[in-house]
């Protein structure tokens, strides 16, 4: 009883009650604006949440992430421009529907798919994270070392730029994570005499620089672009989804949500890949499969449910084991640490009040997505028309203030600008920033566990293989590597067989 009283006192805090809907609304708006990505928005806003208590701060970020997953579909359906990469699949059928004067039905389908997909995802998180955390309690340094190696490799292997570039990103991230004072001996590493670097490279400026700045800088560095105004919004935005059509798309939504949950829980896969898998499955099995590509409600339903299905399931490895599954997870891990919370099995053992409060706010935010989508879409449509040349100066100033505000230091602003330049370099070489960031946040954990294994085993490197669970992770790592190299060859062989 005392436990639940504490949980509800956390949830009924006025800051939570304000920031929960505010996050969803901001996310839906940001997600709908082409050119403003969710990662960019979270990285810009994350520094400001650090002035809040842990729950309101995290709730704001979760809200932005969830609202953004739905918001991306608005511009995809109405403008044929995906607000987020994961909404690209929604566009395939959403825009043809809008052109037929069925924009309202498409938006309704996207909304219900987002809501139900997200709800399935939150339920999966509630059911699975606790059990996984229990299992995580059995993990020693050997298993944790193997798990981190597995996560980093999978994230590199899944990267669209290729395994090797993903590994380079991860390794450079791990190296950047070693800057500062050594935890055991207190020796300075790569500080080059600067006291600003004793605590390592500040996470927030690095994050803002890597994820928010490159898009903005390239916008101003490149050719002056014609106004990317929304143009004429599609007609028929007021028509609603009928009950018969809702019944038709419901199985697709449930299936898509399930696919999103499963793929989202695996580190590295994320929303975009999940939407394409769910879309392909719906194209095979949905009742209106003949209409796919020409305007099928099931196409929108599959993509959106899988997209939102990844929302909470990416939190499963993060909350239960402290391993981020994607960029947003890595950002959240930084935010947790900043608030003095360490995601992982011990969080479940020591702070169940917080975990339960988080679960409840996640469920409530799913319902808020539904309300915002139902009544707010018509207003969001108008904001989508704000051009980037007006938005970006505002965002740029916010990035500078955010970087400065964390420790009231102009040094952090310079770190952010350097990180922005590094981000442009990464894009030029197609080195994934996600692998870098995840390497950066996992670096101390990896080194610490490596250190513990070596001390316990008295320097015996064979100890890294002295556990069945660790061997399982190494085997999965090997499969990911081999699979990544074998996949293109297999595809080519299939293509040759088809053409012959």
């Amino acid at each position, binding site marked *: 009883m005392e436990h639940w009283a504490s949980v509800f006192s956390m949830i009924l805090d006025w800051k939570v009650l304000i920031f929960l809907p505010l996050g969803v609304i901001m996310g839906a708006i940001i997600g709908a604006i082409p050119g403003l990505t969710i990662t960019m928005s979270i990285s810009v806003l994350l520094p400001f949440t650090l002035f809040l208590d842990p729950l309101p701060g995290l709730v704001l970020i979760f809200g932005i992430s969830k609202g953004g997953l739905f918001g991306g579909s608005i511009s995809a359906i109405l403008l044929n421009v995906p607000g987020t990469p994961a909404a690209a699949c929604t566009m395939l059928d959403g825009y043809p529907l809008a052109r037929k004067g069925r924009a309202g039905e498409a938006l309704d389908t996207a909304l219900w798919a987002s809501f139900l997909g997200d709800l399935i995802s939150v339920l999966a998180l509630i059911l699975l994270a606790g059990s996984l955390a229990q299992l995580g309690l059995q993990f020693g340094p050997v298993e944790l070392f193997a798990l981190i190696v597995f996560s980093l490799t999978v994230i590199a292997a899944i990267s669209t730029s*290729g395994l*090797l570039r993903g590994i380079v990103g991860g390794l450079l991230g791990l190296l950047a994570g070693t800057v500062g004072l050594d935890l055991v001996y207190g*020796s300075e590493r790569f500080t080059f005499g600067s006291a600003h670097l004793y605590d390592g490279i500040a996470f927030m400026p690095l994050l803002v620089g890597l994820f928010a700045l490159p898009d903005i800088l*390239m916008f101003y560095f490149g050719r002056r672009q014609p106004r990317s105004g929304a143009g004429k919004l599609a007609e028929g935005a007021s028509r609603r989804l009928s009950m018969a059509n809702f019944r038709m798309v419901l199985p697709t939504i449930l299936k898509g949500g399930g696919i999103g949950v499963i793929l989202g829980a695996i580190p590295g896969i994320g929303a975009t890949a999940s939407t394409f898998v769910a879309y392909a499955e719906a194209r095979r099995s949905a009742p209106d499969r003949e209409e796919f590509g020409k305007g099928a409600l099931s196409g929108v339903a599959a993509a959106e449910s899988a997209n939102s299905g990844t929302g909470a399931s990416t939190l499963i490895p993060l909350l239960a084991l402290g391993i981020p599954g994607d960029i947003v997870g890595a950002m959240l891990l930084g935010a947790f640490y900043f608030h003095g919370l360490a995601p992982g099995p011990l969080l479940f053992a020591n702070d169940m009040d917080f975990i339960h409060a988080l679960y409840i706010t996640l469920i409530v935010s799913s319902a808020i997505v539904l309300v915002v989508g139902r009544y707010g879409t018509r207003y969001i449509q108008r904001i989508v028309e704000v051009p980037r040349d007006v938005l970006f100066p505002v965002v740029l100033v916010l990035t500078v203030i955010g970087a400065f*505000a964390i420790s009231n230091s102009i040094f952090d602003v310079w770190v952010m600008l350097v990180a922005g330049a590094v981000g442009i370099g990464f894009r030029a070489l*197609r080195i994934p920033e996600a692998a870098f960031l995840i390497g950066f946040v996992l670096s101390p954990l990896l080194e610490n566990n490596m250190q513990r294994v070596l001390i316990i085993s008295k320097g015996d490197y064979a100890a890294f293989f002295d556990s069945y669970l660790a061997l399982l992770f190494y085997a999965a790592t090997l499969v990911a590597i081999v699979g990544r190299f074998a996949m293109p060859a297999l595809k080519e062989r299939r293509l040759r067989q088809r053409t012959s």
Partner: protein
Amino acid sequence: MILRLIPGLVTVLIGILLVAVVVPNGIDDPGFTQPHSLAPGDFPTHLAWLVLITGLLLLAFGALGAPTEAVSPGEIRAARALPFAAALLGFVLLIPVIGIEAGTFTFTLALFVFTADIGWGRGLAVAAGFAIAIHIIFIELAGVPMPSTLRLLF
């Protein structure tokens, strides 16, 4: 062909720089380390060598003709990039001197007028409104101790 080799070459150069210069010179020797444990330099040294090895592999795959995308961050026009970079650097450098509100006003006005077609009148109004909003939200409400123009003046 050369485009394919660039990512590998750059990574190899970074690897060599790390292995030969940054890691050996960037870590203080603690003098004594516990037996069977990692010294402060061990983990970064392993990583630096792995970067070099991965760079060589990337180079080999590039040379063997593995499919690679073009190497480019996107189009960069010096005539636009240089004034913008100068304005951004100026903004950051001037914050401690003229305060965040005046800095924000000048910087956003310059961007609105020279990069967005919204005209002087609307540009002035939006930039001034934004600077005032920054003052109210971050300095008055959130209490972020940034250099404030109003506090510098009064």
